Each structure stands twice: as C-alpha cells, then as structure tokens.
C-alpha cells in the first residue's frame, strides 16, 4: 500500500467515524464540546510539547522555514484582504473566508505529515508552533475589524496569544529542548496524553462537519479553498526557494501548507460574532477536498524537491 494511502485513509476513516457518530447521536451532545476542551487544553498541547521537547534533529535552519511560512501567510492574507468584496458579501462573511484561507488543521498535520515524511514529527510540531500565534493574531484582528460585534482591543489580541495552550506548550517544548532538561516520568505521562490526541481530535473534526448550506455560498467557499489549498502552498514555495530551505524541510512544508482549515476557526467565529455557518461550510468542504488534494500536494512537493 502506498505511503499516501497509509496517511490519508486513516484520516478519512476517523473523520467519517466522527461525522457518523455525531449524526447518529451516539454520544450526548455535550460530549463533543467536552472532548474539544480536553483536546485543546490537555491532549494536543501534550503532543506538541513532547514532540518539540524530545525532537532529535531536523530542526536546523528553522529560521528560514519560519520566514517561508510567514511569507506565504502574508501573501495569502493580503490577497484575501484585496479581494474582500469579490469573495464575500459582507464583513462577517469575509472573516470566515479569511480564517478559511490562513488557518490549518493541526490534527491533520500530525496525522499526515510525519507519515508521509518519516522523522518529520519534530518539524511538524515546529511548523504548528510557528503558525499558531500568527494565524491567531491575524484571525482575531480581522474578526474584530470586520465582524463588528467586538471592537479591536489589543488586550484581546494579546490574550489570544498569551492564553493559547498550543503556544504555551510550544514555548515550553522549545525551552526544554534548548536547555536539554530531563523530563523524567513526565515524558511518559505527557507522551501517553499526547497519543490520545490524534484519534480523538480527528473524531472531533468529523463531528464538526456540516454540509448543509454549502450550495448557497459557493463563491466564498471556493475562494477560501483556492487561497488555502493552492495559493498558500504556492506562495510558501516561492519564499522557500528564495530562502533556500533545504529539500528535506521543503516537501513537508509544502504539504503542511496544503492542509485544510481548522475546526478552531468555527469556535472563534462563534465567539467573536463571525459568520459561523459559512465557517462550518468552508471547514466541511475544505476537509473533504483535502482528502483528495493532499495526495496531489504530496506528489507535487516530491517533484518540486526532486527538481530543486
């Protein structure tokens, strides 16, 4: 069986299982937000922390990788802002298009990238660590500016970063790795918590998907999907080539940037008065598209790297 199938089929099966469990009401409704909280605050930060704190090699030259990632995000964010009136009917809808264009699904990142590129778990954690603060700040700012319910307050933006468990776990992981602090029994304990994250996280992603209302919003959905799945990897590739990111980091980087948007975008849209229905549709369509798109991205990334 090909490496791509080994990466994508489990992702598809678990997302589909989560979708089916939610639709069949197998678990009481309060369960899913509870599982999301558990994953957001405990399980996934544990995975990020352990991946970074115990990463062996593969993180050299991360400054160039960071610049390529942020450069790609800046280009796509600018394109989205410039095409705002074309992509969305109003400010609230635009916030969902924007989040759909720049955010990424970190569960899919860990389920796919290290399988396609063995040994890239540390790099994946680093990419998540580099990207989460930037897309959080950008998303909160755009929601505050365009959704209109909450005026832009820098204290809120700062809180979205300083109180984000993924960012805190990333920083802690990087510090522990830098000073080579032995983790003792905490390594196994956190490793155990982290290993529960992917399976349950992908179930949650499936449970969030809603396809109702997709047909009525084709333009913003198509716009955000093209920006996220095509423009972002392309722009990142441009920066990566200019910055001479080494091939062993370039290919995982390109696949990472071709991941679908995050379920967290839906939560933020609901919390800050964004268009949560459109966000749910974008999330559902991008997730479904990505299952077919990621193998293409992997093949293209392989060719790009082979040709560089």
């Amino acid at each position, binding site marked *: 069986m090909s490496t791509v199938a080994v990466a994508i089929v*489990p992702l598809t*099966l678990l997302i589909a299982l989560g979708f089916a469990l939610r639709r069949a009401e197998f678990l009481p409704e309060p369960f899913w937000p509870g599982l999301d909280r558990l994953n957001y605050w405990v399980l996934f930060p544990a995975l990020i922390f352990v991946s970074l704190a115990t990463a062996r090699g593969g993180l050299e030259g991360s400054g160039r990788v960071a610049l390529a990632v942020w450069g790609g995000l800046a280009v796509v964010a600018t394109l989205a802002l410039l095409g705002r009136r074309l992509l969305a009917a109003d400010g609230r809808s635009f916030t969902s298009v924007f989040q759909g264009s720049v955010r990424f699904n970190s569960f899919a990142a860990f389920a796919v990238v290290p399988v396609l590129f063995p040994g890239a778990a540390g790099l994946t954690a680093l990419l998540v660590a580099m990207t989460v603060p930037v897309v959080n700040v950008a998303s909160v700012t755009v929601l505050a500016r365009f959704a209109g319910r909450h005026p832009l307050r820098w204290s809120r933006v700062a809180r979205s970063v300083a109180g984000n468990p993924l960012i805190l776990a990333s920083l802690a992981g990087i510090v522990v790795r830098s000073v080579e602090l032995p983790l003792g029994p905490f390594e196994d304990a956190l490793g155990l*918590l982290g290993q529960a994250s992917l*399976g349950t996280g992908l179930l949650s992603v499936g449970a969030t998907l809603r396809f109702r209302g997709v047909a009525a919003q084709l333009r913003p959905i198509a716009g955000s999907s093209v920006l996220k799945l095509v423009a972002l990897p392309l722009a990142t590739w441009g920066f990566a080539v200019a910055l001479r990111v080494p091939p062993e980091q370039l290919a995982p980087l390109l696949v990472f940037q071709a991941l679908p948007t995050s379920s967290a975008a839906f939560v933020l849209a609901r919390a800050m008065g964004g268009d949560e229905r459109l966000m749910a549709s974008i999330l559902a369509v991008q997730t479904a598209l990505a299952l077919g798109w990621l193998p293409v991205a992997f093949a293209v990334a392989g060719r790009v790297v082979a040709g560089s």
Partner: protein
Amino acid sequence: MPAVLVLLLDVVLPVFLVIAAGAAIGVRFGLEVAPINRVALYAAVPALAYRTLAELELGGATVTRLLAGYAGYLLVAAALAALIGRGWTPIQRRALVGTSVLPNAANLNLPVALFAFGAAGLERALVLYVATSLLMFTLGPSLVGRPTTLGRALRTVLGFPVLWAALLGLVVNGAGLSPPTALARAVGLLADAAIPLVLLTLGVQLVRARRWRPSGAAWTAVGLKLGVGPLLAAAVGLVAGLRGLDLAVLVLIGAMPTAVNAAMLAVEFDGDAALVGDAVVAGTALALVTLPIVLTLALRLV
C-alpha cells in the same frame, strides 16, 4: 538509586500523573465521565484489544497456561475473601469477594505492564484484561451487587464490544490475515487513545468520589487485594506452572487495586456501594506505594 524508586519514577508515577491530570481536568472543566468512558469502552479499548490480539505472538499453550493460572488465582482469592467475610452481612461478604476478584485490569494494569515489561508484557496483560472483562460483566453484577439473572448477564456481556473486537482479533491472528496497512493505522490511532482515556477517566472518577472515610471492612478489602493478592497470585501461578514473564504478569494483576467498574456495578446493581467505592479509592491511592514494591520483586522473576 534503589530499584524500587526507579520503578516508582519510571513506571508507576507516569501512570499516576495521567490519573492526576484526569482529576485536575474533572475539577477544572467539569467534564462528564460517562461520555468519555463510552468512547473508551466502545471505540478505543476495543481497537486496542483487536490490535493486540490480531498481532499477538503468544502461542496457544502460553495463553491457556496464563488463563488457567489466572482462573486458579481468582478462585483461591474468592475463597479466602469468603472465609474472611464469614459473619459479615451477605451483601458485605459478596462485596469483599467482588473487590478481591475484580482487579483494575485495564486502566492501571495495562500501562504499568507496558512500562514495566514492554510489549510482551502488554500482550499478556491484554489476555488477562479480556478475561477480567468477561468476568466483570457476567458474574460482576452478582458479586458486587444483588444476584442477577443469567439472561441479563449474557445480554450485558454480548453487548460489550471489546469481546467482539477481541474475537475478531483472534480470528485475524489465527487465520494469518493481514488487513491493509491504512486500515490498521486507523485502528491504531484509536487504540493509542485507549490507555490515556481510561486513565483520565479514572482520575475524573476518583475526584468525583463522594465523602471518603473508609470503614474497617473497606480497609480489609484493600489489604486483601493489595497485600495478599500478589502473594496468592505468585503461589497459584507457580503451582500452575507459570514462570518468567507469565508469572510476573500474573503477580502484577494480583497486586492491582479493585477496578473502578466494580464500584459502578455496585451502584447499578444495589450492592454495598460504600464499601466497594471506598475500597477502589483507597486501593488506587495506596497502589502508588505498593506497586513499585511488587514490581521490584516481579521483575526478578523475568
């Protein structure tokens, strides 16, 4: 560093840290335990049982010997508990027998077996876990609760997916089938979630335990389980012909505190819920001290 401390730090403490995380999460997020338990029981633990048994490399003779030793140990432990409980009320006596023969075979035994004995230890621990699950959901209600009908007991056990997953795993293993790698990885992602989820659940359950002032009967149950259990397991295991890792795994399960599910059954089936609940809470807390000692001795058997 003394071996017992090394085992405490490397094997037992990580497990209790995850339980503590579960307790903290229970307090901080007010998580309901039932739905998480449901995902664990209906998806993650069956996936783990299937994966382990499908990939099990133990011979049939080893499994038979292990199960025979385990059955012998449970019978002797039950007889001893029944003897000690003479003169107690019938419901208390059944609770004492129940707490002695329903060990925490999943959420404590599996991770400790894995950390202490590696994959080979986990394989053996899973065989005992499946046997304990069958016991728990057939005789369990009658042991820690009031007697139930055979039909009800059978319906309970047949509705328990870990049994079917285990059977499927055994069929796949026996027939020499190898499912597609992608499918195996999907099962693996769920199976990976099993042990952490059951540990977190245990933590949430412990912190939710109602008032806690164990009675003398509860302390008797704890002493019987944690103190006498491993000695009985070692003696019966030796008589049954178990040696090496097989014997060590039997001693380990003999040293496990009473399963949290026993407390749930006692509540559900009108048993002595206070006695069983106190024995579970006190036994699990004390196991942090007793398990490293038992493991130090058990590792000498390997």
